[in-house]
């Protein structure tokens, strides 16, 4: 029972990015406990899983069901729970889907669940995890006994290359009742890149003064060439200047990009909760005493309307377009 199951996420018939990161976290537990890693893929039909062996999966377990054409929490949690007793840990990515799925698997398998974990380790018969609590204002270290479900925060583990077999075997989908019927995802018109997944996030706050000035952020994001998303503070989301999906912070999304650029955002504690783990934080604010400068690696004190066009031009030049 030293083995680990990584429950992977499928969207539109393909594996979502983040599978390799999740397998890295799974390997961490399995290697500490002396076990192997199985990747569970629930899909309606074939899925390209050829990269999973190299990312750390000893085996790929494939469960098929017509209901797996869209996200099917009832069927997926039933499938994972049906094989739970073979595992020491079941790991899930702490994405919107993974956070929905993890507690369902735990309840069905009658085991504890730790969400939004940033570090995992196994010793003896316990799994030890670290998780941010109180909106990132504290870190909790928790021990889980027996089998546990662990949702690992995206970005917490970098993919490893592990040249494992990754042989595909099928696994039976148990009988389940589809209590919730989930439809296809309606992608937002801003394109597929989400603040929670982008390498660079450019966020705007009340300092923009008017919703039309979000164009300044769109232009800077575009200068990064498809790897940047536009975020927002709650003040501007509540004012209707930006969509809820763009909100960063305690009651919005938690992001951990490589580069976070806060434009006209004061840096309220609830905003910081959502972005303080970014690798590099840049702040542009005309108030030199704004709290955002306390967490920013680099700050420019000044009028955003003057700084943003210059920054956009510089990024364009650096990126060669």
């Amino acid at each position: 029972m030293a083995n680990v199951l990584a429950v992977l996420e499928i969207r539109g018939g393909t594996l979502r990015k983040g599978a390799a990161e999740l397998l890295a976290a799974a390997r961490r537990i399995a290697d500490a406990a002396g076990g192997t890693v199985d990747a569970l893929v629930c899909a309606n039909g074939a899925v390209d899983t050829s990269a999973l062996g190299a990312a750390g999966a000893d085996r790929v377990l494939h469960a098929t069901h017509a209901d797996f054409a869209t996200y099917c929490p009832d069927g997926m949690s039933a499938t994972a729970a049906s094989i739970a007793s073979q595992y020491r840990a079941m790991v899930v990515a702490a994405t919107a889907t993974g956070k929905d799925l993890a507690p369902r698997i735990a309840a069905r398998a009658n085991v504890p669940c730790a969400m939004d974990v940033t570090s995992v380790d196994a010793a003896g018969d316990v799994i030890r995890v670290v998780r941010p609590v109180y909106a990132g204002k504290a870190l909790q270290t928790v021990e889980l006994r027996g089998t546990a479900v662990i949702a690992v925060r995206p970005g917490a583990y970098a993919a490893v290359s592990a040249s494992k077999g990754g042989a595909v075997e099928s696994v039976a989908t148990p009988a389940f009742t589809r209590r919730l019927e989930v439809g296809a995802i309606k992608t937002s018109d801003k394109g597929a890149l989400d603040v929670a997944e982008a390498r660079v996030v450019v966020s705007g706050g009340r300092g923009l003064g008017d919703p039309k000035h979000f164009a300044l952020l769109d232009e800077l994001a575009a200068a990064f060439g498809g790897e940047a998303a536009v975020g927002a503070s709650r003040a501007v989301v509540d004012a209707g200047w930006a969509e809820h999906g763009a909100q960063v912070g305690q009651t919005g999304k938690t992001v951990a990009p490589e580069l976070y650029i806060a434009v006209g955002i004061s840096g309220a504690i609830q905003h910081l909760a959502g972005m303080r783990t970014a690798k590099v934080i840049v702040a542009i604010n005309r108030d030199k005493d704004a709290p955002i400068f306390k967490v920013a690696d680099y700050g420019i004190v000044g009028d955003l309307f003057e700084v943003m066009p210059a920054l956009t031009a510089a990024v364009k030049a650096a990126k060669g377009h």
Partner: protein
Amino acid sequence: MKIAVCLRRVPDTTAKIVIGASGSSIDEAGIKFVPNPYDEYAVEAAIALKEQAGAGETVVVGLGGDTVQETLRTALAMGVDRAVHLQGAPSADGLENARVLADHLRGGGYDAILFGKLAVDDYGQQTGAMVAELLELPCATAITKLVVADGRASVEREVEGGVEPASCALPAVFTCDKGLNNPRLPSLKGIMAAKKKPLEITPVTVAAGGVTIVSLALPPERAAGRIVGEGAAAVPALMQLLTAEAKVI
């Protein structure tokens, strides 16, 4: 429509966190406690569902020590009909808390059971979905839209890059996200009325479960940042730092 809301008290989101003497929980001295912000969306949704149906009952349920009662009264002041205080110490294992809530809710004849998406203290993010599984009810989590008609619910939730619609038959469990509604504030009349509304106390025992909190610590401080300069003139220096020092461009 008979609707239950599970409610919890949390430190005010602006509270400064100080680690308590035990080393595994916070020092509660001087901290103001408020209803969990996501639970306010759930309370609002419950009241609105009853209003839409034109008849029914809303019940708010809180598991914890006696301090929970003040939070339950806030929900009563918002317009919930009655409260149940499940008196006992919650576990660090969310599944054990879910079991106690589920045992209470089972057989209650609820058409909908509402939760917050997460509690902003322990960030458990699990109670609602676990209660649903224990009660074998349909469940949609982190919803930003809820429409109930003809015994069915249509919901939406935000996922990375889009919105995911779903539907299910009632009775069902929902966990509520920001965006679902704008919670009403308790009116003065509501606050007066809340004092007379029933608040039933039921002692419960919560099992320890399989989770132990080993420690709670403050996160490492971010290294002090620096002001690169003022205005557009500082952009070249910033670019130099981002490319050569931080290597993120």
